[in-house]
């Protein structure tokens, strides 16, 4: 099944590509580019899935993830984290913080679509 997905990504071209492929897959896509206000935006929109970039202006994706997990309302929200750094350290840190899936850029479109579908399934 599909639902509402919120993209938190500051790189406009990547966000545009993601929006296109996810919409085509049937998702209702929201977009947010600022790290500092991301947490509040997630609370406000209440998406079914979040796609979160690791390096964001204002705050790191890791901080946002920890904020989500600390709040009972969003503790179980599926989060797909994307990073262009691709170091093992980052993956370990994200997993410790309770990430649902972790993918390294660049990614195959089909992979993202499949991952989100899998995560959104209860």
């Amino acid at each position, binding site marked *: 099944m599909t639902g509402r997905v919120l993209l938190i990504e500051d*790189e406009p*071209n990547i966000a545009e*590509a993601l929006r296109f492929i996810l919409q085509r897959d049937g998702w209702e896509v929201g977009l947010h580019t600022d790290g500092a206000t991301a947490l509040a935006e997630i609370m406000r929109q209440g998406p079914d899935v979040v796609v979160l970039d690791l390096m964001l202006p204002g705050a790191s994706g890791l901080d946002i993830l920890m904020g989500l997990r600390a709040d009972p309302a969003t503790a179980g929200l599926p989060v797909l984290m994307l990073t*262009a750094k691709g*170091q093992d350290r980052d993956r370990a840190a994200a997993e410790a913080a309770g990430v649902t899936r972790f993918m390294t*850029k*660049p990614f*195959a*479109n089909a992979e993202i679509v499949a991952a989100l579908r899998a995560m959104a399934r209860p």
Partner: protein
Amino acid sequence: MPFNLLVLFCFAYVALLFGVAFFAERRAAIGKARWLRSPLIYTLSLSIYCTAWTFYGAVGSAARSGLEYLTIYLGPTLVFVGWWVLLRKLVRIGRQNQVTSIADLISSRYGKSNLLGAMVTMLAVMAATPYIALQLQSVTLSFGVFASQTPEVWGQATGAWVAGGLAVFTIIFGTRKLDAREQHHGIVTAIAVEAVVKLLALLAVGAFVVWGLAGGVAAVLDRIGTSPLAEWELQPGRWTGLIMASAMAVICLPRMFHVLVVENTDEAQLGPASWAFPAYLFAMSLFIVPIAVIGTDRMPPGANPDLFVLTLPLAEGQGALALLAFLGGFSSATSMVIVETIALATMVSNHMVVPLWLRLAPARAQPGDVRRLVLLSRRLAIMGVLALGYGYYRLSGGSSALAAMGLIAFVGVAQFMPVILGGIFWRGATRTGAALGLLTGGAVWVWALFLPSFGSVMPPEVMAAGPWGIGWLRPQALLGTAGMDPMVHALFWSLALNTGAFCLGSLLTFPGPVERMQGAAFVHVFDTGAVGPRAWGQGRADAEALLILAQRILGDDDALQLFEAEARAQGRTGYLPDPTPEVFARVERHLAGSIGAAAAHAMIADLTGRATVTVDDLMAMANETAAIIENQARLEAQQEELTRTARALRDANEKLTQLSVQKDAFLSQVSHELRTPMTSIRAFSDILAEGDVPPEMVAQSGRVIHEETIRLTRLLDDLLDLSVLEAGTVQLNLSQSNLSGLIDRALVAAGQVQPDRRFVITRDLASEQIFVRSDADRLVQVFINLIANARKYCDAAAPELRVMVRQRGGRVMVDFIDNGRGIAKEAQGLIFEKFARLTDQTRAGGAGLGLAICREVMANLGGAISYLPGQGGAAFRVVLPLRIDRMAAE
């Protein structure tokens, strides 16, 4: 001779002096005025001791009082022959403490006390007023001699014209800039020329009188033998008094102190001056008696002997000789007035205006405003002092004989002597004692000599019976000592009471901490090779605040230079040294050179938040025997060495740790910067490959892929560029190009960055006309980077970029200064590292390699790029050699 022609001659002469002063300033500015260091110029500049009083008045004095005029030369001769004892110490102290005036010396010695500085200044201004009046009078009188045939063009206005002209000359060459040391090369050279003119003039008149009029040496000696002069008797009291007064005056007169100590460029000048200056005085006095005797013989009875030097040649029909004599007298008067007003203006601004301003100042002052204030107050003070002199001249009616007016000044400034001698030879002398001594001596001088000189100010009954009939307060018979010569009487009582009050006050009071340290530094100036007392313990102030303060007083250029030198001495790069006590002490001394010790001390105390010294400093002062001092100095030196090494190690370690972290970060950053565009390319190419895409999406995909490929290429180019530059294997294309043209190119190219932002660019095209031999494209690359950065990051509402170009020796400095928030201090050391983009917010540019590339480019071009702190915005300085060294380039 027609009066108009005379005025024309005067103008031509003054124009010549202007030329000499201007030429000397220019040569000194480029460091090619070697003559300034020669003892000859120093000696000639000392000759401002010989004023118009000496030039005209000595003959008058000889005609009236016989050989008494010799005393005025004997006093200074004694002081100079014994230079080893006193002058050497004064000059050393003056140079070590960057003393700006006699008031500054006294203020500095007695705990940087501003009260004393102001007292000395006031006394000096009072004493100088009749003396300046005397010079104006002599010039006016000598004009009058020439104008007697054409009285209609000649009036009372001459004095005012002369005073005004002198004010203009002095302001132009005396207050053009604010020097770290109050030195005026143009003026020193001009007065040296005047010294030669007046000596030649007097010798020429003398030779004419002896061989032209009297018929040879033997005949002259005969005439002297039969003249009334031969019956003259020596008055021992008056002789001793006059010799003493002139000996003290040659040190204490503000203008003498100025040329003797402040303008001294090399201590080694003193030795030759110790015989050359007395020789000059001897030459000046050689023909005084013949001129007086022959003049009395030949001139009509009632002729003013003060003007024989001028009237004798004129009466004998020697117009040209008279003109030379006139120029000699004119030189004597003008050189005295110029230096005297400069010295007094420095004192007034440093000890009265600046302290007052510091007390009333608005807390947030703009950079440079102290300099403007100081220069303005000096200009006003110069006008004020000359106006006072002119006022005195009009008030006193210009009637009294020349010599009497000079002596009043001599006795007045002699009041500084006990305080100076006590200050440099006696550790126990205190501020209170000095203030009491100056006050007492000054009061006696005013009462017994200064006020009576006005004639009308003192009612005759006060002179005869004392104020309110108190007999022992009679101005010329204090404590019932009637019958003394008025001058000797005033000299004796003022100095005796002055010294008494000074000693008593010093014995009964205890010196403050700063006083103790200054006292030790002054008295033991030859014992310690050290930089002087450490007045500043670990204060709270940081180096940047100190730099900003220094810029306000010394100006941006000099302050940056000073700080760069300090930082280099500590083994650091950039412009901010560690704020050690030594740095503070040295900066304070530099500031003292511009605004005086007291004001500089107050400003730094204000900055560090404390005005006193620590207990440690006091302990160090309390038990100092020679051995302890020596040991301590050695230990301190070692400790300093260790501290410096430790600091260097700490810096290096910090840098290494940072570098290792940065290397990790670098890899991670390269990965990030490569993967981000690749992600876009892959995602869009996937979309295209899948097919069934709306046409506008196809177009967008193509555009994004194109853009991101370019971005990748640029990143790879930058990385390759950087690695080539870092390895030093870059190929440079050297050519000769105009810096202005290069800046033009960079401005045009960088204008494409955020073209919608309106930027105000401030340039000084004239200063940019410099041809450099370098790699033009590389240089433009650096400029573009800096300008583009300003366009991107300057956060001011009305952004502005100043481009300033300066040439220093063989190096050119190009500063780019914007009006934004600047770069935080802790980040300043990092900005030139790779990927050190400070915020991730602005993604407009490249990958954060720009400044790192700039640094490498400049290193390859034999120059450097650095961040300039404390400019009120982000500021970068590019330094490059005028001609790149081929060896370094290859």
